[in-house]
């Protein structure tokens, strides 16, 4: 049993336990905190698999961004405890049954499958040519600048960058469209109807009302 396995075992157990607690907690803030713990554990698992870039991004995006917004919403709604009436309890046995069934299915099917075996070294570390201007110390002691093209194997973040911005450039761009649409959706659902003519906060409406009031005053004084 090596260290990586030990870490995987311990952290994986914590991750699974805390993800169960996410659903089991009756206080939404506690659920959110356990979800945070799950995210952090998953990040550690990524590190164990030598994917430190993904781990850092996992913490940065999920723990630092998304979970904060979760908590933000929970606080805005200000729910201390979920109501104690167990409206969903008659389904829980079925839910657990289905969950167990799927787990067993996955455990048997996915583990026994044979997978495409790529040479891991070839896949993780790719060679790239980088153009850099380097200082070169000549034999006579003078220092000159020289453009060098280095072929080197790259690490994690470079490999991810290459995949995202070269091989998968177009899907990556489409993903940005996807986010744009999500943003439009949030705004469409969230905003008040500006096109409504009686919108009382619109500048046009206020100006018009001021004019009307002025007219009325003049008429009264006349």
């Amino acid at each position, binding site marked *: 049993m090596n260290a990586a396995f030990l870490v995987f075992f311990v952290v994986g157990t914590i991750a699974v336990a805390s993800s169960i607690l996410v659903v089991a907690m009756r206080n939404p803030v506690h659920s959110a905190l356990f979800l945070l713990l799950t995210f952090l554990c998953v990040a550690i698992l990524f590190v164990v698999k030598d994917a430190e870039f993904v781990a850092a991004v996992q913490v940065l995006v999920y723990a630092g961004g998304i979970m904060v917004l979760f908590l933000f919403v929970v606080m805005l709604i200000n729910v201390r405890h979920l109501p104690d009436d167990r409206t969903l309890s008659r389904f829980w046995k079925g839910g657990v049954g289905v969950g167990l069934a799927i787990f067993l299915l996955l455990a048997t099917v996915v583990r*026994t*499958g*044979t997978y495409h075996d790529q040479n891991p070294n070839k896949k993780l570390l790719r060679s790239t040519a980088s153009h850099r201007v380097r200082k070169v110390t000549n034999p006579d002691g003078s220092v000159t600048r020289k453009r060098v093209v280095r072929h080197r194997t790259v690490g994690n973040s470079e490999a991810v960058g290459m995949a995202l911005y070269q091989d998968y*450039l177009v*899907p990556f761009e*489409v993903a940005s*469209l996807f986010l744009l*649409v999500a943003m439009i959706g949030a705004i469409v659902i969230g905003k008040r109807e*500006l096109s409504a003519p009686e919108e009382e906060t619109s500048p046009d409406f206020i100006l018009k009302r001021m004019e009307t009031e002025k007219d009325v005053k003049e008429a009264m004084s006349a």
Partner: protein
Amino acid sequence: MTWNDVVFLLPEIIISIGASLLLLAPVVGWRQRETSAKWSMLILLGITALTVIGCSYWVQEIPQSRSLAGMFALDGFAIFFKLIFITAIAMITLLSDDFLRESRYSVWEYYSLLGFALCGMMFMVSGMSLISIYIGLELMSLSSYILAGFFKNEEKSTEAAMKYFVLGAVSSGILLYGISLIYGVCGSLNLLDIGRALSTIITNDALMFGVMLLGAGLCFKMAAVPFHVWTPDVYEGAPTPITAFLSTASKAAAFSIFARIFYLALHDFQLDWSNVLATISALSMVLGNLAAITQDNVKRMLAYSSIAHAGYALLGIISLNSLGLRGVLIYSLVYVFANLGIWATVLMLRRHEYGGERVDDFEGLSRRAPFWAFAMVIFLLSLGGIPPTAGFIGKYFLFAAAIQAGFGWLAILAVLMSAVSMFYYLRLVVAMYLREGREADVAITRPLQIVAATCLIITLLLGIYPTPLINQATESSRWIGARAAIIPHAGR
């Protein structure tokens, strides 16, 4: 990425830029100009359609299989479907016109979202890699979720969007898990590479599970039983033009990727999944048609009918032969136009928020608007697959393909169920022609007339003289057919 690669994506680039520009229009003070929104959208669609046609000539010299790192292809199949999508979206734009004018929702965002949905569908149908197909599918789905809940002050619309979103998200998760398993086994996301890898793999549990999950995810998107539960509620609650979108363009998009993935990637893996899909197909046809009989709400009835039609379309995918592939193409086109015609007629009946939704609302339509009542009959006959209409050609190809592939029992079931479907289609006809009832209140506007008339012409013309459509379908399916080894000679 070279300029040749850009040609493959030029229509998508144009539609995405155009849709973003539509968003900017309210910023420059055009918020109230609803007519401009409609025309901008139509012009944008026109430009996109012309680009698709232009690109189709352009790409003929470029080898398809390795464009954009194997991410996208612009073969005949994709072009055929892209043109269907663009036309359908144009018609939905026309259908939406009056509907939006009465409500106070912002039209520009609406059209922009339709544009992004179209963009997603176009990416999807061009996708040669599971990742590009997935991301296109998600772009389309997300736009649909928002559009379904666009009338946010109406409870039904919000409910529909919520149901659609939650179930759609779950199905996307299932789809992704399937994709990840397939990637794990095959070591590639490219459809052709997967196809090649599969020809060497004899049996693999993980792969089978992956394909199952992939199929389940796709079945959700095309609303096949048992992944259909969302359909009636969403179709009923969504704004009627969006229901039209969901039941035509979105559905055809699901057919298209189903066909592309299974024909290109999984053709050597046929035996394991064809029986499962045959069962799904049979269930969809039986349950969809039987459930539709009992519906009094036209939107729900058409929702169940669309479930049944998903079952028919699956015949073309299961059979995995040239007839089946052409059948999917032909059937998609025929189905889209017949359905759009029906939705146009339903919208004509719409007087208040929910008018034209009940079968009773059709009573007496033959006296108020005899021509459009007749058109409705033609569309219904086309959906039922009765000979003088185009629907017959589509069903003929699908059933013949099934028989050729040895699924005779399924073809017989399909014919039987088509007969059942005529029962509830005729309920509408009876309501229109034979019931006295109250006077149907109609609001026949020019855009609706244009849509209904166009659909009528297409449905009748292709029913009477289908040769050009069949030839085009043969031409369009050549590249995929050659890759799937169901057509002897290689296409370009």
